């Protein structure tokens, strides 16, 4: 695949997640949630995670987000990636995503649609947009927030 084909596909993936965000639904009291924002730009995210502790599986993720295309698409992609995974699998995904956006080695097989955001590595000021969802997820799972 040429660079231009890949670019076109990645553009389409990102814009598809912007226009058709995945996993938007109602949450209930079984979900744990947290609210995070990027104060300088106003990206805002409330992330809801339904985690089955007994079976160690993330059963569901939903969210309310407002922000730039990178922030919004990244949260949508993340929700697809993490639902159905256990803590170890998720840790590997998040580590790989963080490595991708900061320019370290990563395994693209683990990242699904989120691979389309690999260009973030050349725009460091936008790393915080792409990682807001993942930060929120880590915060929810650290049991800090209800």
């Amino acid at each position: 695949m040429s660079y231009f084909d890949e670019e076109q596909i990645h553009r389409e993936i990102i814009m598809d997640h912007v226009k058709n965000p995945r996993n938007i639904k109602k949450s209930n009291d079984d979900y744990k949630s947290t609210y995070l924002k990027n104060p300088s730009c106003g990206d805002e995210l409330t992330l809801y995670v339904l985690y089955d502790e007994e079976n160690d599986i993330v059963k569901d993720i939903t969210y309310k987000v407002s922000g730039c295309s990178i922030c919004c698409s990244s949260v949508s992609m993340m929700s697809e990636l993490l639902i159905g995974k256990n803590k170890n699998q998720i840790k590997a995904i998040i580590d790989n995503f963080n490595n991708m956006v900061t320019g370290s080695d990563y395994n693209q097989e683990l990242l699904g649609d989120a691979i389309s955001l690999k260009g973030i590595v050349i725009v460091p000021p936008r790393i915080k947009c792409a990682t807001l969802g993942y930060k929120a997820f880590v915060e929810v799972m650290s049991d800090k927030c209800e």
Partner: protein
Amino acid sequence: MNKYRKDFPMLDKDYIYFNNASTSLTPTVVIDSMVDYYTNFGVNINRGVDSLGYKVTEKYELVRSKVAAFIGCAKGEVIFTRGTTDSLNLVAQSFGNLVINDCDEIVVSVVEHHANFIPWQELCNKVGASLVVVPVSDDGIVKPDDLLKVMNNKTRIVALNHVSNVMGGINNIRELAKIVHQFNAYFVVDGAQGIVQEKINVHDLDVDFYAFSGHKMYGPMGVGVLFGKQELLKKMPPIVFGGEMIDTVSIEKTTYKEAPYKFEAGTMMIPEVLGLGVAIDYINNIGIEKINNYVTELRSYLVSKLLEEINDIEIYNKNIVDSNLVTFNIKNIHAHDVASLLDKEKIIVRAGHHCAEPYMTALNVVATVRVSLAFYNTFEECDKLVEVLKKAGDYIDVLF
């Protein structure tokens, strides 16, 4: 005005700099004056009897006189601070604490920068006073009639911007001051943007306090000014204590110097103050009116070109004529996506809430793009901005 571009080393760097309302660029003469201080003086002011210290003290005090002449006040009414934020906090914490009681009201507008909003909100919370928010026109301007409607005999302080950093419209400070004083209240003006927009005379305008920063007027960062009327400064207690602001100190009691010195505790930002003096000379040499005539013309060119050529643009301050900034959004595109794309083309703008979240909420947007011009910007640079926006598709080019 293109001949002045060579004065600014940052303009060699192949960037188009459109974020002047945040920080203006610094001319070589200002940079040189700070290098001169560290190279040839390097000592503190007001201390000891050495001749170097004496010379620096003279230079530092000469800047105070320059500032006084620049804004039309007495030398003793000029306090050097860290910037507009520091100046406004000083008024709120010292003067505000002195005059505000629990049943009083403080008036601010919804378009204030956080620096002229939070200090008053905090003061109100602390003493139990009420914060009253005066509405603004669609152009972000405080109309005298609207101010009149919120004033009453409980109003003690009115704190407004001279020029909004989001909308760029000029408030009629003289008219507003008349209303404030009619109710025996005090008028605090945030001049961070206004100081480069209009030639001012604080006594003519009859404001009680006027705050501004060096780094928005081609001067250094980390230095600013608070003007306060002499009789008010005299009553105000210092809020920072330490070296050089004292008269006598004993174990039982300390007395303080007169204003403005009682407000300048510890080692001051001497090179930055000296740089500010040079920035004032630099502005005076070109002429503030000439600067603003050019910038206004440039800005109206940019606004008409944007409206003509960019589909789906919403310019929030298009009806304002005397301004140096354009605040806009592209429909369905987040301001940061726009700014990031421009950044890729080496065009620096500001995107975000501009430290004015209450006004962003009032506009019902989370963020806007702001292009703010200075006299060293060119018509060609404006063309380039329009060209880049015109070519933009999904605004995520930055990733590829």
